[in-house]
């Protein structure tokens, strides 16, 4: 079994987090979220008219998410532009955010969410969702809750939260199982669930319970950052 974590954290401890709202002036909403060495920024544009017109929904607005990594955010330079991984992450990000949104006020429109990873050290899709959720709130889109997200998992037989790169690549004692989740504390639902690795049902439930607690901490920081920008107006 894994005795202790390489960065000295407890098994139930997330890395240092920092959130900031309103970082991109041109956007209708924007936010930054940092967890350890992972840095994600997100911008929301819209609701705006959707082209081409056949994509429009006369009943409600649609959400479009795009996840992208900078070429220099990872050890070996990533080619610019989308790839299979980023296309899938864009899709699951959309599905993670949709449950809290009410888009009935925006027929025929689109809300675009752009996520950019400036620096990667695991948990980038979760950091992107956290930032995107704050950016949507900042843009004034009606939401039932803020979406929080974290990656939990099993590393060397231990259930732990917020895996870093070394833990994600861990090979001993059965290796690593990575479970990125998103959670909406108000109704207690998971809106992102992915998994690769291997573990028992009991282990999975334990991991999800742990992730829920971590998400609550992140949720607090999201709320704090959003309140921060309204201080000046008081």
């Amino acid at each position, binding site marked *: 079994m894994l005795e202790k974590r390489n960065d000295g954290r407890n098994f139930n401890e997330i890395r240092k987090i920092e959130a900031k709202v309103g*970082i991109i*002036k041109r956007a209708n909403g924007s936010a930054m979220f940092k967890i350890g060495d992972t840095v994600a*920024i997100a911008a929301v544009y819209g609701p705006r008219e959707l082209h081409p017109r056949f994509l429009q929904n006369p009943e409600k607005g649609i959400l479009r998410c795009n996840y992208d990594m900078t070429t220099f*955010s990872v050890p070996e330079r990533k080619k610019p532009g989308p790839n299979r991984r980023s296309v899938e992450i864009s899709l699951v990000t959309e599905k993670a955010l949709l449950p809290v949104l009410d888009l009935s006020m925006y027929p025929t429109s689109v809300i675009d969410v752009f996520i*950019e990873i400036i620096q990667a050290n695991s948990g980038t899709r979760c950091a992107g969702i956290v930032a995107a959720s704050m950016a949507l709130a900042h843009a004034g889109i009606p939401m039932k809750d803020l979406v929080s997200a974290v990656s939990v998992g099993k590393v060397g037989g231990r259930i732990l939260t917020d895996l870093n790169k070394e833990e994600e690549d861990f090979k001993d004692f059965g290796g690593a199982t990575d479970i990125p989740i998103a959670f909406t504390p108000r109704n207690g639902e998971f809106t992102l669930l992915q998994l690769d690795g291997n573990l028992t049902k009991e282990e999975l439930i334990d991991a999800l319970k742990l992730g829920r607690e971590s998400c609550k901490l992140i949720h607090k920081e999201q709320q704090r950052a959003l309140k921060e920008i309204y201080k000046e107006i008081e």
Partner: protein
Amino acid sequence: MDHEYVISLIENNSRIDGRNFNECRKIIIETNISKNANGSARCKFGDTEVVVGVKMDVGEPYPDSPDEGSIVVGAELLPLSSPEFELGPPGTQATELARIVDRGIRESKAVDFKKLCIKEGEKCWILFIDIYTINDDGNLIDAAALAALAALNGARFNKLDKDYEINYNEHSNEKIKLELLPVTCTFGKINGKIIIDPNSKEEKVLDARLSISTGNGKIYAMQKGGDKGFTLDEINHIIDMAIEKEKELKRLIKLV
């Protein structure tokens, strides 16, 4: 509305953000913004913000310069940074931006390509300089050029294993030392008046645009944009202003 207002202000010798014609916005440079990059920087001109990361790889030198490495500059105009940018491969504006930044560095020999040679005719360093726009409030060119220099300045090489295999996970203590600091200044012409560092509202009504890269008073690269031209007198005036600004802007980066 904005368009006519910007023009009428310029005609009365003032600007929409209150600056003088030869005054840049507040410039802020921050380095080491991304740990996995060999070098990285963020540069702000007022609300315009650009990040640049340098990644290194080992490749083969070109046959006509067997003892030199090279640089590859790329630019992404992220749709995150402006409602006017769309997803997709780099278009003409992104390509022009990357090439202006490339020439500023290449022609001034700010990076000595000979120092990027590892083994003549076989192995050399290739520097990928990638520009990402974060917020476009005009004059991405100057912000990107300055960010690129700040990212290159002191960028650390990767460690090399035996047979010159690159180790992507570790940087050595060897750093890029810039030979000089070429500064790129962009000017706009509106109704015959010349302004430096146009913001996004001014960019919309520019008749013409001129970017000049200078280093120690010498001119290394130029690019004229916009639909109209410049007179010789105007060019003369712009170059004087560019050389004057160079002294001011190059203080923002401390060479390693």
